[in-house]
């Protein structure tokens, strides 16, 4: 029974820079209160408890009553007693660790199970490499990225994540490599404990490379599971690289999901993201993009659908740091029950970032009188030759449209769902990849 800052043994304690970084994160982290501007709408009550269970690699088996590496789980369905399937010492028959996901497209799949990387590597084409974060730290690849760009003081949960830096993957795409299939990272969570997982991924796209990265947060346990997934993704895009980042968050309804996506975008490169959030009782998907060099471009789009008492937060911060950089954001939400949708969107244009363009739109549909939306758009413009706009609106389902549909025999609930799907059509259409778009659409 512990709070968020528990003393636990982590791998790599003999690496001084890593230890120093963890220490820094540990010192910076405090749980933001109501007076912290960046968290004033998104209350963190769900994290003010002391029954967290930590899940660094070495504790997981004991915790889940699992098995030592290379030990047969003993169940008759399991036919790979050496665990060569990569189940990580759990059970490799589908009954106890089922990594199957129902997606209508092919992908290079990477799996995390209860916060732990499943050592099952996809067969990647030449020029693309996936390794664990610890391996990338030990071998030096991660040294140039981790802890270099994210301002931990601004991001308390990234600081917390850094304090427990251990789990995650490091993905690198060499110059001129264009990945034909998406890389899909699936986070399976099924736990009866209040498990905390800090996962830190780094994606490096070299010059003129392109890749699609899909993240899928999938709850596979009992309905009432409680857990906390705290994610940091760092994207580094070299000149003319293009990364599309799609995310679908469908965590258990009592869980907490906090993610920071941090992208550094260089000359002529493009970071394009779309995030659909549906799950968790408390969720924030925060995206910070630094358009570092000329002609860097980003699109940050998101949709959220919520009910019950959930709070789902979409926070963006687009920093135009150089000339001729462009950004656009479209975020749409559907809020029912007593839920609360939060959108905080910032466009910051620095003094030298002339001839930049930044656009932002937030739209929300309120399905009940008790649903709430809090919107905070911010424009911070220091350059004088820019095109910049933002807009926000919220409304409810159109009664005339509902009546028209029902008068054709369509049931009221179906009619509402059709209108909700239609409402989200334009933001989902921002997904370029048809198969992924259909998958997201089917999950709305």
């Amino acid at each position, binding site marked *: 029974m512990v709070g968020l800052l528990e003393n636990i043994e982590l791998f790599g304690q003999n690496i001084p820079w890593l230890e120093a970084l963890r220490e820094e994160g540990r010192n910076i982290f405090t749980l933001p209160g109501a007076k912290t501007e960046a968290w004033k709408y998104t209350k963190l009550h769900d994290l003010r408890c002391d029954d967290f269970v930590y899940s660094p690699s070495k504790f997981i088996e004991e915790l889940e009553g699992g098995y030592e590496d290379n030990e047969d789980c003993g169940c008759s369905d399991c036919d790979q007693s050496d665990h060569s399937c990569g189940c990580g010492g759990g059970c490799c028959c589908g009954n106890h660790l089922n990594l199957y996901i129902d997606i209508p497209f092919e992908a290079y799949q990477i799996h995390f199970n209860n916060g732990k990387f499943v050592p099952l590597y996809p067969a990647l084409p030449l020029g693309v490499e996936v390794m664990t974060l610890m391996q990338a730290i030990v071998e030096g690849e991660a040294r140039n990225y981790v802890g270099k760009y994210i301002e931990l003081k601004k991001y308390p949960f990234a600081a917390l994540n850094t304090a427990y830096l251990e789990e995650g993957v490091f993905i690198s795409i060499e110059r001129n490599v264009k990945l034909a299939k998406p890389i899909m990272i699936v986070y399976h969570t099924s736990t009866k404990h209040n498990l905390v997982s800090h996962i830190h991924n780094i994606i490096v796209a070299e010059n003129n490379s392109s890749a699609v990265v899909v993240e899928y947060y999938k709850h596979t346990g009992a309905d009432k599971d409680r857990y906390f997934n705290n994610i940091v993704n760092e994207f580094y895009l070299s000149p003319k690289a293009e990364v599309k980042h799609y995310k679908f968050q469908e965590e258990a309804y009592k869980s907490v999901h906090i993610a920071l996506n941090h992208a550094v975008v260089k000359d002529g490169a493009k970071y394009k993201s779309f995030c659909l959030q549906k799950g968790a009782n408390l969720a924030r998907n925060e995206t910070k993009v630094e358009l570092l060099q000329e002609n860097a471009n980003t699109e940050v789009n998101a949709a959220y659908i919520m009910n019950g008492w959930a709070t789902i937060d979409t926070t963006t911060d687009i920093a135009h740091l150089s000339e001729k950089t462009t950004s656009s954001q479209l975020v749409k939400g559907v809020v029912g029950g007593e839920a609360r949708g939060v959108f905080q969107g910032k466009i910051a244009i620095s003094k030298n970032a002339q001839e930049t363009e930044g656009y932002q739109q937030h739209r929300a549909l309120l399905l009940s009188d008790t649903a709430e939306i809090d919107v905070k758009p911010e424009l911070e413009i220091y350059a004088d030759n820019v095109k910049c706009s933002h807009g926000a609106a919220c409304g409810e389902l159109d009664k005339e449209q509902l009546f*028209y549909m*029902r*008068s*054709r*025999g*369509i049931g009221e609930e*179906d009619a509402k769902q*059709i209108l909700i799907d239609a*409402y989200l059509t*334009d933001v989902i259409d921002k997904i370029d990849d048809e198969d992924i778009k259909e998958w997201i659409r089917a999950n709305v």
Partner: protein
Amino acid sequence: MSTPLLEIEDLCARVGNKEIIKNFNLTINEGEVHAIMGPNGAGKSTLSYVLSGKPGYEITSGSIKFKGKDLISMSVEERAREGMFLIMQYPVEIPGVPVNSFLKHAVNALHQHNNESELDTMEFLKMLREEAKKLGIDNEMLKRAVNVGFSGGEKKRLEALQMSVLKPCFAILDEADSGLDIDAIKVVSNCVNNMLDGKRSLLIITHYQKLLNYIEPDFVHVFADGHIVKSGNKSLSEEIEANGYASYVKEK
């Protein structure tokens, strides 16, 4: 022996505090075409909304039976599935919902209601395209969002298409307002006339006699002050065309 399809008895209905339908009585038998005519603002449209169950219209007394069942206790969608179809004067635009998927939902809801298996997408599209072709609707229009950017005539064509796909046993043609688009009326009346097979029934709600040149009514009723003040055959509509409604409207 004629079978009653719709029986309205002593119906009173209001919107907010305003009583609009007062002691209204009307029986429509299978295969009959009735026309209700009345001055603007008499509440003719209210009658069509009350019959289709639109929220906001409160029935204070009276009864409505549809195919022998109590209509008032049915939801809007149940009435539609039982075979009632309101041809709206101003069909609603639904951005983001393509015509074909909208109609697939409607047809499947109807099939489910009748305990029939759902059509698969290919079967459905084949049927829809055939019906659309008969009405001069091209495949492109089926992919467009329902009524969005449609001309008046196209909107009526879509109403007609929905009717030919859903095959209702009773349609209400609401053209209550004075502003009649003749081209649109031709489209919809063609479709309505095709639907009328001696078994299905129709209630026309209109201000002008002109519409009745396209669809021949068996009965004509004059609606004023919340109820029918006079009933007759088609010659009644010609009389109104000649003399107006003045003699039926109470001096205020």
